[in-house]
């Protein structure tokens, strides 16, 4: 826990992130702080990017990908999944491949996404609000038509 990947940075005027040492210190007292998760970093989206989430129906997301590949005129699409949605992204990619009778190929990449949480003190004497960064895994699967198709 003491590694710099999960620091709690105190936005002091000095401007240095202060990674806290022990696990006991990193664990915030839930009574004193309110935790708000910020959204993950958003990059501009191309037409052939599909971000998979857990809220939308699986079949709808699959149909969307199929539409892009077949009717949408895309030679390749990128299926992105973060955290819990990784499973679903893989599932979608495999289903696409299985349904295409070997026409589609898959190339997967993984990455790590830095997420930010805000910790807001409950009472006024609680001091400055803190931010905490944590990491989550992400997968980016390129689904494309192979050579000769």
């Amino acid at each position, binding site marked *: 826990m003491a590694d710099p990947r999960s620091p709690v940075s105190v*936005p002091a005027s000095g401007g240095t992130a202060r990674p806290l040492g022990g696990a006991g210190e990193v664990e915030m007292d839930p009574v004193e702080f309110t935790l708000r998760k*910020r*959204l993950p*970093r*958003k*990059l501009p989206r191309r037409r052939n990017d599909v971000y998979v989430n857990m809220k939308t129906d699986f079949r709808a997301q699959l149909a969307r990908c199929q539409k892009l590949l077949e009717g949408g005129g895309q030679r390749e699409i990128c299926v992105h999944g973060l955290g819990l949605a990784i499973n679903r992204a893989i599932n979608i990619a495999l289903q696409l491949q299985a349904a295409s009778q070997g026409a589609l190929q898959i190339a997967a990449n993984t990455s790590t996404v830095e997420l930010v949480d805000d910790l807001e003190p409950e009472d*006024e004497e*609680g001091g400055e*609000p803190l*931010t905490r960064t944590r990491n989550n895994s992400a997968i980016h699967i390129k689904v494309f038509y192979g050579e000769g198709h």
Partner: protein
Amino acid sequence: MSGAKERMHRKKMRNQPSNITFSSPGWAPPQDERRWRNGGEAQRQGRSYGGPQQPGGPRPPSSAPSPQGHPSGGVRGHQWGDSARGVQGYSQKLPRYITASVFAQARAAEVGAMLRAVTKTTGSSHVFGALPKHMRRRAMSHNVRRLPRRLRAAAARVLEKTSQQKKEQSKSKSRRARRRHGNLLLEFNRRQRKHVWLETHIWHAKRFHMARAWGYSLGDRPTSKCYRACYRAMSGHCLLQDLSYYCCVEVKGEEDTLLRALARLTSKETGPTFGAAVFLSGRRQGSVVVHRADRYPAEPLGQVLFMWRPKRGPCSPRQLWLWVHPTLKQDLLPELQLVCQCSEPPEPGPPVALPVLARGSAGEEPAEAREAQRPGKKRKRSGAEGEAVVPVKKIIGDGTRQAASPLSWRSEATGIVISDLTMEILRFRLIGPLSHCVLTDTLTPATDCGPEGMTETSHLWWPEQCKDGDNLSLHHRQADIFRQLKGVCFSGEIPAGTILGLAVDDPRLTLPTRRSKTLPDLKQMQGGGEETRLLTLQGVPAECCESPLWEQAVRHNVTENKIPEQELNRMRSELLVPASQLSPTPPQSRVPVLLVHQPGKQVGEEKSSWGTGWDLLLPKGWGMAFWIPLIFRGVRVGGLQEALKHSQNKGAPHFPGDFPDCPAGARFLREQETQLVDHYRRRPPAKRPNYIKHGCLAPFRCPWQQLAEEWEMIVKEAAEEELPASEGHAGPAPEAPGPEEHRSQAAGRGEGSAPRPEFPGGPECGSTSALSDAAVAVAKFKVLRSRKALRRVSAWCRPTSARGQRLRGRAPAPAQEQEQQLTPAVVASVCETHGRSLVWTRLSLLRKGRPTLHAMICIPAPEDIQLLRVDPAYSGPQEPRHKDHFRHRRGRRRQEEGEGPEEGGGTPERLGQAPAAGSPEPPAAGLWPEPLPSVTSHCSRVLLGFVTQGDFSLAAGCGEALGFVSLAGLLHMLSGQPAGSRGLVLVRGAASLQYRFAKIDVEV
């Protein structure tokens, strides 16, 4: 004959001669008028034709009618008689002879009457009223030659008459004269007397439906169809709104005394207040609900945005800006003066009050200053100056206070100075994830002034600023941070409420030639690196939040020395290369601004940070100079309605409308009710919903007071009976209304139209007395704002499933505890501490349905939930139709008043105004008259609360509503519901019988 037909007939016959008077004295038949009307009867009266003459001459033989003498009626009657009764009987009744002279006289009278009738114009007195409709043309009204020749003479006469009148009316100047600059400004100033314009008014007035509210003329909604486009701008790009009508109140003083004074207005229970470290350092903007001094949790005033100026020295006085809605200012200022002990008469003080009081001269100065800079440049201008009648363009103005009222107050005891900076600082709000891109594209950090500017003294603020090395280095740091903003992907990544001070160049200098949409630069984003990451993590360091905009003198200087548009265009035209940048940048064009980050949706789990954006604070006078460049970056502009939608999607209460317990909110709701009732009454009765039949007691207001009281009674009774609560018997006893209701009933009966101050959204049509009463009135219910209590309620609202626990995320253990605690005893204790409270909730509909304003939130019966469990597609129960008992009473009253039933078209209106003060004023047909019966038990499902904002949510893809429910009622319902389907409610529109299922959520 129906009423309308009768009326038509009467109108038609109005100008017909009803009586024939014969010149002969002996001639007075009793039924002669009938003969005129109805020829068929002539045969019966045949005898009377010659009645008086009978003693006279002989009658022509038998059945032969006299063709020359009889009127047509007689002839027709004759033929009738022929066929019907036979010649025999008829001929007997005819006289044998008539006297020619008398007969001729009688006919002459008839002919005279006919001629009179023919020459008299009937119906509309317009000349072309004589033409059939298909021959009329619009141009006929002013061009006589369009008419048929026979009507021209008359038309010409009419035209002449009207044109004379018109000329007398409009002896004003020609259009050209009116549009001359000075005269135009005079006219503009005249039109701003009552409702002040914002600086962007003219831009808005060309594109928006304008609304006159709170002393301002504001853009309500665009005239173009843009509901969805504005939503897309808010969620995908950027929506711009002019919030300059918000009032800024400045408070200056020692930090400790200020905090001590302000602490009396707020409570820490509702969240961080003025004293929270992060706000006090000046790095963030805060938001707080202000109450009357020491009265928390009662008597709230409204929501206030505030920002502290960063500390400059260890013990220098602090400066605080409160940004308030104009309708709140009149309540807040006296309260502020009270807590700061600023009851002394306004200081005639040098620093604050001067520029605004000397309004006229302040505006004229810059013109002279410009003249001084470029002597002899323009003859025209100097000529105009010579006339000395050129009106001053009124860029300063304020619709929220009297012209003569003081602007600042000083306390001798505490040293605190309160000043009213309304309209001194402009506020533009950019909403949307790319608003920072628009800002970085539009604004460029101010360029340093050259070395020659450093040495010589200048009357401009920027060279003076640059002389100080500290200021310059601060500016460079600020500019660096501003550039790092480009590397940010979307505005929600910045810590909520971050403030950044900056000095920028005049954005008109970098105006693109064409309007285009700003898009994020991918290269910038990837290149941002560590610095951008620090910015998103920690926000802006405290010293960079400082801006010269806080200084009165600098603001004044910047406003005065703005280069006018005309001058700028001249400078551009003198450029060697057309459309190139002006260089060097003119020294006047540096503007101090403040950028304030607005957090998006912060509560709840869905749509996190939706609607985030930035506010741009500017010195006055620079509005259009920034507005147009922003527009050229492809933003969309919204008005008040779009702001409402923004707050609805954010799930946040919108200021005046969703604060029913604040005086400002009560005023707003009363006005809204008046408007809605007016709109309702304007419609024909057959086209209005009959709200009585729909079982809706108050479609245009929400009787919060009554609701809270009734629920208090219900819970009390339930506690007395010691029974586990269930919806079935939860109906309150209508015969046992609260004491308030008794009183209100008495008042309603006694005075009829007297305002009832205990109901904040009262039924009165906003007369001024009623409004002032509302300001005095104190709501007897309150809105629950304590965070701790809200958090508990929020946890109770969720279904106790694994998903709910997971979504709660943090701190599942205390949630578990609280869930277990939801027992009747706990409910009773909570209701005890927060009696008569309302809770702000968000409803999302499970399936179909679009909730509307003032829709009712009800408790589902156990069988409803059972049905839903069996069939998930079950759309909801239906309310049986109610009976309108007042209909007959209305009919009776109508008869008493002697109005024919056929005049039903205008009856409700007349009924609404006609009755004397003795009886209570009856409402329009289809509305419940005051006082209302029990609101909770009126329908088949027990009422819990009302919706204050509701619509189909484009963000969620289902109907969503925001509203208040009674806390006691909510807990009562939750404790009775099975754990799996906890938090299910029914929503029913005011003009609908269909209940829809919705999930209730208390978001903290």
